[in-house]
Structure formats: structure tokens, C-alpha cells
């Protein structure tokens, strides 16, 4: 019986002992493991558009042009050279690289490019979130020969080149073996009968099928790597193609140094932290600030990894509902003096110091200070409670009843200065920052009620313009950022991203002029003027730009960049790494 009693203990001990001993990762293998915090919502070439999709497409797909992470200029990728632009600025002619080939050995031709353009522009494609950007720029495309494509653009715009950096080229033969779309002209794309044509409807139904977002055999492309495995929430593997057509071409978009790249999905900061400590991740740009600070205190981490906090093209902001309905949302922020007063009450420096441990930089405009377009004449708005109080009093907000909350008579009704500020619960440290702001606002006689919301609801209310104020963030890039989407009044009218209701005839005309101005000097003058107008109107309080947190294993020779994804994984060069660490991986 004693044997029976001890059996469970034995079984458990044996089971645990057999599990003990982590297989040591071979750090001399030329495989790069990259941390990503969420899986992409799909890798459909035209229909999915998450940030991580672009990261992975950098290896598996190719565009005509691309923004170079190093020079921050457009460079040709599938195109042989930069396009020839006609004198009127409305015709772009691309010549494709003669050596560009698909995996089956066939050439990448102008037919593929025209096919891709049709698919992206066609209303039957399930890409409503991005189609507008392409449709606003491209009118039509035609081929003059197998390798030459001419794009007719609607108008002159700084945005025209940008659309070609996001247009991943589809292989016509693979997607449309029977050439169904050949009969579909650019003129016919928007005709009502196209949407009901059974042949087109069937083709697009197949093309929009979710399988094309996930199944490796459907995720083919002209890139130097091939997607070979996608384990749902665990990892995505891309492997280097043999004899890839671009191997001998110089340029950052043609590197294919690692044999294999594994994108490891780790959602939790703590789990990512342990994975880095154990050297199970080669590179990350999404580790939490406090975790990277802790890691940098470890000698063996510093010996194994290069790491940095780098300024990036992103900013956090507080947005005000400048055009509320006056009933559900009171007329609190219609006066720019009030908005400026709030700006004086936000303890931005303290927030950076306490919540970001100093790893963020202030900015007072929607343009990143990393760009030459940034208007350096705009002064940082200092934290100044007295000045804020004065501005509020000038705007008519006084504490008439001695309850320490300011009030004002608006349209015959006494309104208290009390409002809700929406914020996303997912943001790390956001709650604490809201409490810091709440305290400071209260000192000036304003009651702010933090309103935590999940990501979807936050944006739903924002786009519905159903909010008083909100704290959000925008992620930008080194590329040209069209101010139309965030600041034009049309984007308020049609419930777009200008949910604060900024703008008037003057700013709208300035935005349109900026978009059309191709002369760099004139463009700089206009964009700086636009920043000044936004600064004066203060629809946003621009808080800060948190630094990107990057760590890359030293077994790869690699560089860290400000532009996302902050690294050039294709150029990771495996070096003769000794693996000497103070705390080597142990096997028990």
C-alpha cells in the first residue's frame, strides 16, 4: 500500500524531471526571431492593412517604390528607376526591372501592375479603408510595353508618390488565371453594372475570401522571402528564396541575409521580457519602457544586445470636441482660450519624467520634430496654472457659486466646467496620467472625469463625435503625411478622422495648397504656416512623442533607425558571435 501511496508523487516527479532542461537555442544559426505583440489581422495583399502586415510584407511582397529607412527618400524597388513625371505632374511612367520575376520564373510585367491597380481601385474589393487613398490619386493605368506602365493621376499632389509605396504587386496569372478582369476597363470600374456583373462578382468573392489572408500557399509575392508557416497566435515564419531575382541588386529593400525570419507573437510585456533575457528573441521594437530600462541594468543583457530609446514619428495628444452639439456635449471647448488654458494645465514634463522615465520628447505640432517641416518657431506651452486661470476667466468661466468648479451662462443655461475625457484602457500608464491631469485641472476649477474605454469603443465614439475630450495617439512615419485626413473639415463632416471638428475655409484651402505644392521651399512655408494655425487654434494639446524601445541581439550586425520598424531585418548580418554572457543559457 505504501507503494500505491507514493505512486502519484513518483509520477509527478518523473514528469517534471523529464520536462526539465530547455533545449539551448543554437545562436550560431542564421535565423532571426523578431518579437511582434499582436498577430496581423491577415496578410491579404490588398484587403488587410495592419501595421504588422507591412512589416512582414517587407520580406514577402514588393512595391514599385518604397521609402528607404536610411535615407528617408523614395527609392525604386520593382521599378528600375524613379518614375518619369510629365510636365503637368499628372502622368507617372514606370519602367519595371528586367530581372524581376515571380516564384514560377515568369517575369513581373506591366500586366501585373495594371491588374493590381484595377483590383485595388475596384469597389468590389473589400478594402474600403484604403481604397479612397488610391482612388483619390490614381485615375487609370496603361502599358506601353511589357515593362513600361503609365499611370494617369487625378491631380498634382505630394501624395501621388506615396500611393506607389503601398501598392504591393499581385501576380495576374496566379490570381486571375482566366484573365477575367482583362475585360474590365478603368472607366468601367465604378459603373453600377460592374457591381452586378456575375463574372466579376464571382471573381471578387473568391479574391476577398479570408483564406487569402491566412493560407501560406495564397500569400505568395515577389519578395526575397516566402511565407512558409503561420501558427495562429504563436508565430509566422518566412524563409529565404533560392536564386531570388534581386539578390545582386544594391539597396536596403533587397537584403536577404538571414536564412529564416520568425515573427514570434508575444502579447504580454512580462513574457517578452523573459524571452529577451533568455535570448529567445533576436529583435524587438515593442518592449515596454520600464522593461527595457530594467534589462539595460543587466550586464549580460548589455553584452548580448544592443538597445536604444529612439525618437520616432508618433505623438500622444489630448483632443477637444470643438464643434459639440451643445446638448449631449456642452459648449466647453469652442473657445480657443479655453483650449489653450487646458494646454497650460497639463503637466507634460512630469508625465514624461514619471511615466516614461524621460524616454519621450515634447512636440507642439502634428509634424514630428525629426522632420525638416517641423515649425521650430512654435514655443512649447509651459505648465502654468495662473495663466490658465486667467485665460479661463477671460473666456467667461468663473466660479460663481464657490464650489471650486467654474461655470458660465451659455444660451441662458448655467453650465459647469465638468467633462469626461475618454482614453484607451490598453495604454500602459494612461490611467495614471489621467489622474495627474485631473488633479491639475481641479486646481484651476475644472472637473475632469476620466472615462476608460476599450480600443474599439474609444474610436467608435471618436468617429461618432460623441465625446467631450479624449486622449489618443497617432503613429506617423517619415513619409509625407497628408494633413487632409486629420485636419480637413470634410473629414469632420463625413465622420472621418477629424473628429475634433478642427478647421475653417482658411485651413481647408491651406491643406489643399500643401497637397498640391511640389516645390519644396514653398511647401515648407505652407506646412509651417499650417502648423502655426493649428497651434493657435489648439484643437489638440500635443503631449509628447514616446521613444521607440529597440533591442537587437549582438550576434547580428545591425543598425537602429527612427523610422518604423526601427530595424532592417533583411540586413541582419550574422557575425562570429562568441555568445559569451555572464548568465549563459543553462541546461539542467
Amino acid at each position, binding site marked *: 500500500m505504501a507503494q500505491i501511496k507514493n505512486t502519484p508523487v513518483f509520477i509527478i516527479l518523473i514528469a517534471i524531471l523529464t520536462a526539465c532542461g530547455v533545449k539551448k537555442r543554437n545562436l550560431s544559426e542564421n535565423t532571426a526571431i523578431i518579437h511582434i505583440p499582436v498577430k496581423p489581422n491577415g496578410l491579404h495583399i490588398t484587403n488587410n492593412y495592419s501595421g504588422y502586415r507591412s512589416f512582414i510584407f517587407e520580406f514577402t511582397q514588393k512595391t514599385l517604390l518604397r521609402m528607404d529607412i536610411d535615407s528617408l527618400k523614395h527609392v525604386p524597388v520593382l521599378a528600375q528607376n524613379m518614375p518619369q513625371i510629365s510636365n503637368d505632374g499628372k502622368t507617372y511612367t514606370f519602367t519595371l526591372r528586367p530581372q524581376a520575376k515571380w516564384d514560377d520564373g515568369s517575369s513581373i510585367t506591366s500586366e501585373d501592375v495594371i491588374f493590381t491597380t484595377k483590383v485595388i481601385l475596384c469597389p468590389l474589393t473589400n478594402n474600403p479603408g484604403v481604397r479612397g487613398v488610391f482612388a483619390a490619386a490614381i485615375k487609370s493605368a496603361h502599358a506601353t510595353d511589357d515593362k513600361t506602365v503609365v499611370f494617369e493621376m487625378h491631380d498634382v499632389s505630394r501624395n501621388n508618390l506615396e500611393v506607389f509605396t503601398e501598392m504591393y504587386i499581385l501576380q495576374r496569372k496566379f490570381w486571375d488565371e482566366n484573365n477575367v478582369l482583362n475585360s474590365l476597363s478603368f472607366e468601367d470600374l465604378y459603373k453600377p453594372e460592374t457591381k452586378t456583373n456575375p463574372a466579376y462578382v464571382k471573381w471578387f468573392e473568391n479574391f476577398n475570401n479570408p483564406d487569402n489572408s491566412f493560407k501560406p500557399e495564397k500569400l505568395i509575392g515577389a519578395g526575397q522571402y516566402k511565407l512558409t508557416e503561420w501558427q495562429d497566435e504563436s508565430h509566422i515564419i518566412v524563409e529565404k528564396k533560392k536564386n531570388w531575382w534581386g539578390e545582386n541588386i544594391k539597396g536596403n529593400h533587397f537584403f536577404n541575409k538571414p536564412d529564416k525570419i520568425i515573427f514570434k507573437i508575444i502579447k504580454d510585456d512580462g513574457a517578452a521580457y523573459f524571452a529577451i533575457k533568455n535570448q529567445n528573441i533576436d529583435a524587438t521594437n515593442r518592449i515596454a519602457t520600464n522593461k527595457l530600462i530594467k534589462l539595460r541594468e543587466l550586464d549580460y543583457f548589455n553584452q548580448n544586445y544592443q538597445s536604444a530609446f529612439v525618437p520616432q514619428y508618433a505623438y500622444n495628444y489630448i483632443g477637444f470636441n470643438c464643434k459639440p452639439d451643445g446638448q449631449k456635449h456642452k459648449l466647453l471647448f469652442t473657445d480657443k482660450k479655453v483650449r489653450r488654458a487646458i494646454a497650460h494645465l497639463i503637466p507634460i514634463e512630469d508625465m514624461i519624467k514619471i511615466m516614461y522615465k524621460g524616454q519621450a520628447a515634447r512636440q507642439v505640432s502634428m509634424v514630428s520634430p525629426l522632420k525638416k517641416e517641423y515649425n521650430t518657431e512654435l514655443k512649447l506651452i509651459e505648465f502654468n496654472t495662473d495663466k490658465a486661470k486667467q485665460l479661463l476667466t477671460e473666456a467667461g468661466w468663473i466660479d460663481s457659486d464657490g464650489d471650486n468648479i467654474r461655470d458660465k451662462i451659455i444660451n441662458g443655461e448655467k453650465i459647469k466646467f465638468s467633462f469626461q475625457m475618454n482614453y484607451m484602457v490598453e495604454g500602459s500608464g494612461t490611467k495614471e496620467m489621467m489622474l495627474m491631469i485631473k488633479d491639475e485641472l481641479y486646481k484651476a476649477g475644472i472637473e475632469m472625469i476620466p472615462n476608460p474605454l476599450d480600443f474599439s469603443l474609444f474610436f467608435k465614439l471618436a468617429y461618432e463625435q460623441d465625446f467631450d475630450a479624449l486622449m489618443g495617439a497617432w503613429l506617423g512615419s517619415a513619409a509625407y503625411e497628408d494633413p487632409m485626413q486629420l485636419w480637413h473639415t470634410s473629414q469632420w463632416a*463625413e465622420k472621418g478622422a477629424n473628429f475634433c471638428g478642427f478647421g475653417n*475655409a482658411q485651413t481647408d484651402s491651406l491643406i*489643399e495648397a500643401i497637397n498640391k505644392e511640389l516645390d519644396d521651399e514653398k511647401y515648407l512655408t505652407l506646412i509651417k504656416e499650417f502648423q502655426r494655425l493649428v497651434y493657435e487654434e489648439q484643437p489638440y494639446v500635443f503631449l509628447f512623442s514616446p521613444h521607440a524601445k529597440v533591442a537587437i541581439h549582438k550576434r547580428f550586425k545591425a543598425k537602429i533607425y527612427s523610422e518604423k520598424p526601427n530595424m532592417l531585418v533583411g540586413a541582419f548580418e550574422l557575425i562570429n558571435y562568441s555568445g559569451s*554572457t555572464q548568465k549563459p543559457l543553462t541546461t539542467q
Partner: protein
Amino acid sequence: MMLLVSLMAFWISASAPGDPVEILTNSGTAQGSSNNISVKKDIKDSLRNKLGLNKPLFYFSLNSLAECDTLHKIYDKLTRNTLSRLTAKYGNWKEIHAYYTAILNLQQKSLSLSADTLLLRCAADSADLMQKDEVNNSLNQIINETNSLLHTYEHNFIQTKIDSIKNIIYDQNYLNCFKAEADNLSESYMQMIANSTGWKNYVPVVRWHGLNSQYHQWLKNILLKGDFGISYTDGQPVITKIWNKFLLSSRLIIISIFLAYLISIPIGIASARRRGSWFEKTTGTILFMLYSLPGFFAGTMLLYWFANPDHWVWFPEGGSQPIDIDLSQMNFFERFAYQWPYMVLPIITYTYSSFAFISRIIRVSMLEVLSQDYIRTARAKGLSDNRVIYKHALRNALLPVITLFVNIFPAAVGGSVILETIFNYSGMGLAGFDAIRNYDYPMIVSLFTLSGFMTMIAYFVADLLYAFVDPRISY
């Protein structure tokens, strides 16, 4: 029972906030333009047809006389809600429909006319850029107010918006072409209020929709095809998504519960046999201390000590299998050998808190059984202590444990959000959590239905086990 579960699940899905079509078309990030709006509508209509959302909800509906029987055909959920609330207030669908049509007319016109067209119409095409932008600005205000009317049902708000639209239009000559639509909107709203027939809301009407209903389609797909629909987040079939995660979660839960019983039952028996002894006191104290440790803390501590180069790297820090080894060609045992190290720490975290609970139940149950006459008789017959305990007492003492066992099955569907997050183990817990966070109702409903189904299976298994351990129980 399953029919009730399915009805409840369907009801949750149908009454949930958020519009599946909006989520599936990624409209949240779409930039607007008149062309885009009609484009989005086309795709939305096509998706609504595909998902069957243009059909009535159930086989029949119990409405009031005032309600429109084809309201479900309006594609925008918020607009449907607005019209439904207006009906509940005014009870005159004919007038409400006229008001709705007036909004759509104004919306259509404001979207179809550009600033250039308006300037041309009032022969001011020589106007400078500034004037064009002023026209644009006014046009945008009209568009915004008109759009928001589709989601507004309170009188004061509606009146303010209509007044605002009229003020803008009447203030500017170049907006003359909107006067007819604006007047019509205002007039139709006044008519809606004036001809209110609120009494119709108190006259019930049963409408029969037959098999052409969303519920019938939903149930048919599940019963005949095992099809729970597609996930709103990525368009993948729900059943495919759930199956992989279910396998991951269930193996953890089943092994955890097996271990919990394997350890707790002997401890419970020993505690009962040695009541008041140092063994009982010591194990009781330790187990209750473990019981009071929160799972997220214990999980993090286990990682800190056993998956950390600062201490010992005995186990992997997270995941469910090695990512640099291809396991697809291996047989079950080879695969399991690679996956087992990834399961140890999560299993320990899942298991330890059950020790105190199960062992205490066994102890109490065993003490009760040991005081029975037939046990005294067995002892009097000279049977050894072990034989009395394991042969005669244990089977009867197991009854409450079997009741606990019922929880295993639904737990396998539920998973554990916190532990799966800590160990980066993407099982059912995280799937459910993500589904709730992303308003992925087909996933939520499927998890709910599966959980209900598993609970029923568990009760069935428990009933069989009751009969097995206690022959006095029969069905």
C-alpha cells in the same frame, strides 16, 4: 436544453452592440467621400446578404401595430435603432418613413454636389479659392448635421439640428438648391410629431416570418454543417479558430485536473485517517497558503525562478511548443515530448490552488463515511485498515468529488485569460477575452454554446460515474 442554450446565445449575438458588417468592412478607419460612402454601402449590402442579416431575426416577431415589419432591411444598426425609437415615441410609421426619406434626400444631394458645382450654379465661378472653401465649409456642416440626424431620436436634438441646417442654407445664396430638401425635412418632422399615433404601440401584432429567419439559418448551419459562422476580426471560420485553441487549452486543463485529483485525494484520505495529527495540520496549513496565492502571482514567480537566467532556466518562458522545430511530421508522442516542457509551469499554476479545495472535500466526505455502521462492521470483521479505506470507504467518499468533476469540461472551453497571458499560451481563455474585446460575437456565441454543451456532457458523465461508484444509484 441545447435549444434553450442556442436561443440564449443567439439572443446575445443579435442584441449585442456594434455592427458586424461595420467591423468586417474595416469601416472604422475608412476615410469618407461621397464615392466611398456608396462604395461602402455596396460592400455592406453584399455582406449583409451573405451573412443573412437582411432577414427577420426569428420565426415570428411580437411587435406593436406601429412597428414596421421590414425595419431589419436597413443596413445601419444605429439608424435602425433611431427609427425604432421614433416609432416607439410617435407610432406613425408612414410619417417616420417620410422623415427618414427626407433625411436621405438631403444627404444624397449634399454628397452629390461639390463646391465647384454650387459656385457654377450661382454664376460665381470666378470666385477665389477662399470663397470656394467657404462653400465647402458650409457644405460640410450640412453633411455632418444630416448624417447625425440618422442617429438622433430625441426631440430637442433633432430640432436643433434641423434649425442649424436651415440656418446654414438660408444664410447663403449659393445653397438655394438645398432649400426644397431642407423644407421637406423640417415639414416631414413636424408632420411626424403632429400626426402622432402613440396608441398603436399598445396594440400587439404577431408577425410570422417562417423559416426565412436569421435564427433558423444560424441553427441550420450549426446542426447540419457544424458551421458557427465567421469571426468578425479576421473573417476566418469560427470553428477552425476554436478547434486549435481548444486542443491547447483542454490538454492543459485535463492534465491539471487529473494531477489535482491524483495529489489531493491521497492527501484528503490521509488527513481523514490521521485526524488532528501533525500531518493534517501541516498539509492543511501549506495547502491553504497555496490556495490563497493568486494565480497570476504564482505564475510570475514560477517564471521568475524557473525560466530566468538570473536563477534557473529549467523550463521555457512561454509559448506552447518550440518555434524553430517542425513538429508537423512527428507522431503524437514525439510531439508531446517537445510540448511537455512548455506545459509544466502553466499546469502547476493551474493545479496548485485545487489541492486545498479537493483534499478538504475528500477529508470531510471520508470522515462521514468512516463513521458509518458498515465501516465499523468491516473493521469488526478484522479487515485491514487499508482494505477498509480503499475498498469500502473510498468509493462512497468519492461522490462529492464527482460533482466537482463536472466543472472540468466547461473549464476546458473557458481556459484562463491571466495564465495564458503570462505564459504566452494562446488557448481558449485568450481567445474568449480577445473576442469580447473586439466585439467578435460569433466567437463569443460559439464559446458560450460550446460551454453549455460541455456542461451537459459533464453532467451526463457524472451521472454515469455516480452509478459506477455507488451501485445503489440507478437510472
